[in-house]
């Protein structure tokens, strides 16, 4: 596992709450550990320092150079805004809130950001201030930093300022590899997803798919012919040998091609077990489009479905029985 055990739990985290001027150098190169005072925040201000084996949370997140500088810039922006709004009434500065209140604000902000991201909405800094931070605007920097830390430690997500100009944030996944997730839930097993991806490509092309084309598509999933993969292992062997042995794919030399090239076709087992409509549904899910975005293929799938129903009126929608290995 990728845990670094240089976690430092510092009881001065309580002091950090009221201190929003932590030293930050915008040019911090990646990989350095964050300021020690941040480390214990998530465990709560009361947690005593623990050794690595007992550490409630794992290692600090990798530092991005932009993270440190941004809260400062935003702090200035929000302070300027406040200065413009403040009327002539002379008020004493607001009392610094209790650490627990700032922690609570950080939790609220964390949820707010997660929900915005879930709904694929823009995370806009002025909205964050208006909807969540409110009267704690002066401490928004420390709240933001705390939130970022929680998101990194618990969710493996980076809260990044994507555009200082528009003041937009986004949640970026901090775990590798990334692209697998889309396939994982769309199908029963990752193997199925991989196979369906190739079958779909062949189907959409309407003829054999050259090996180069297949690898172009698999590259989107982060798969390369020479790279061993944590889930699929030797991908090339899997698709050119195992899937072929199982009759899900046919792997044939392209006639008259120099240098030699190979192409993939549907195997006999794929034709038996997988319907065109299943391919259309798969495409719709993966590309988040209506199946009718591939009109001629969709028509074909409909016709096949009708033919199947007529051939055997007693059967319901056939399910894929791609072997779950």
């Amino acid at each position, binding site marked *: 596992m990728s845990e670094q055990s240089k976690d430092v739990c510092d009881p001065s985290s309580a002091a950090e709450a009221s201190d929003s001027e932590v030293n930050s150098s915008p040019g911090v190169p990646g990989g350095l550990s964050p300021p020690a005072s941040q480390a214990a925040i998530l465990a709560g201000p009361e947690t005593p320092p623990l050794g690595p084996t007992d550490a*409630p*949370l794992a290692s600090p997140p990798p530092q991005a150079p932009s993270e440190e500088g941004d809260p400062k810039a935003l702090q200035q922006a929000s302070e300027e805004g406040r200065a413009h709004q403040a009327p002539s009434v002379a008020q004493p500065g607001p009392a610094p809130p209790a650490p627990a209140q700032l922690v609570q604000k950080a939790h609220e902000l964390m*949820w707010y950001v997660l929900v915005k991201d879930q*709904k694929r909405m823009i995370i806009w800094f002025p909205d964050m201030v208006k909807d969540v931070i409110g009267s704690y605007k002066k401490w928004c920097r420390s709240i933001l930093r705390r939130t970022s830390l929680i998101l990194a430690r618990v969710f*493996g997500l980076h809260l990044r300022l994507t555009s200082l100009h528009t003041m937009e944030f986004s949640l970026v996944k901090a775990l590798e590899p990334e692209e697998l997730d889309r396939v994982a839930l769309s199908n029963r097993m990752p193997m199925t997803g991989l196979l369906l991806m190739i079958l779909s490509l062949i189907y959409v092309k309407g003829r054999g798919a050259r090996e180069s084309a297949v690898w172009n598509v698999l590259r989107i999933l982060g798969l390369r012919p020479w790279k061993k993969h944590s889930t699929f292992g030797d991908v090339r062997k899997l698709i050119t040998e195992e899937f072929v042995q199982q009759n899900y794919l046919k792997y044939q030399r392209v006639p008259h091609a120099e240098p030699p090239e190979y192409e993939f076709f549907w195997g006999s087992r794929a034709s038996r077990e997988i319907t065109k409509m299943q391919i259309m549904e798969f495409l719709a899910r993966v590309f988040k489009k209506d199946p009718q975005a591939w009109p001629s293929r969709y028509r074909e799938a409909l016709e096949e479905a009708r033919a199947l129903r007529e051939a055997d009126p007693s059967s319901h929608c056939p399910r894929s029985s791609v072997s779950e290995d």
Partner: protein
Amino acid sequence: MEEGRAERRRRTEAPSHTQGGPRRAGVMTDVHRRFLQLLMTHGVLEEGDVRRLQNHCYRVHDRSAAVEELEDFINNINSVLESLYIEIKKGATEDDGRPVYALVNLATTSVSKMASDFAENELDLFRKALELIIDSETGFASSTNILNLVDQLKGKKMRKKEAEQVLQKFVQNKWLIEKEGEFTLHSRAILEMEQYIRETYPDAVKICNICHSLLIQGQSCETCGIRMHLPCVAKYFQSNSEPRCPHCNDYWPHEIPEVFDPEKEREAGTSRATKRSLRSRQH
């Protein structure tokens, strides 16, 4: 020193069945983080998908480790989430008892989760629909009745046509379910808002006699009026040829549904497929 370390390890791997002691915060690894990311992305997931998700996360980050039992896995994560006032909550669909999971915010005391992307009048429409659903006998509110309240909404004036679309938006976002022109709460809404609903409508709210959770759809005893969720009825009266009300002992007048069995679902899928491939091989 060896002993001390072993002792500490035993303490850290606190078995999930120890009760009474303080909840020990678990260790977050990339397996858990990816799991949380994906659970959050999907909003609400059925148990089968949650297991697949868990397996996927192990495969990606820690192939050699044994996949922890789902309940322990989730309890482990929840112990870390506790200090953040969020948790992975388990519920069940009210119509057929499929277990579902969602990441919910315990600190929410309003419909504020939806607040960020719905306008004031849209939120109010949801509140109106919610009230009708809770007050109804069946747990369903008709589209007509909801739309008739459009004039009473706070905020910008909304036309009925617009309101229909907003209701569809709620369905797409898994807050409401529509069945034949009537609306009820999606299991996600129940999971997320149970606390809010119980606090806001303490008199109108219905509770299941068996599991004591919020009840929107269910069956009720015609004599004494107690209610039960359909899956709770299924479990309670399983293989009971003479079902009787647990409260007043009168004959239970409704059809007893079947207990949800995930194994049966999977079997049904494979047996159909086997039949199909056998058939096609014959010619």
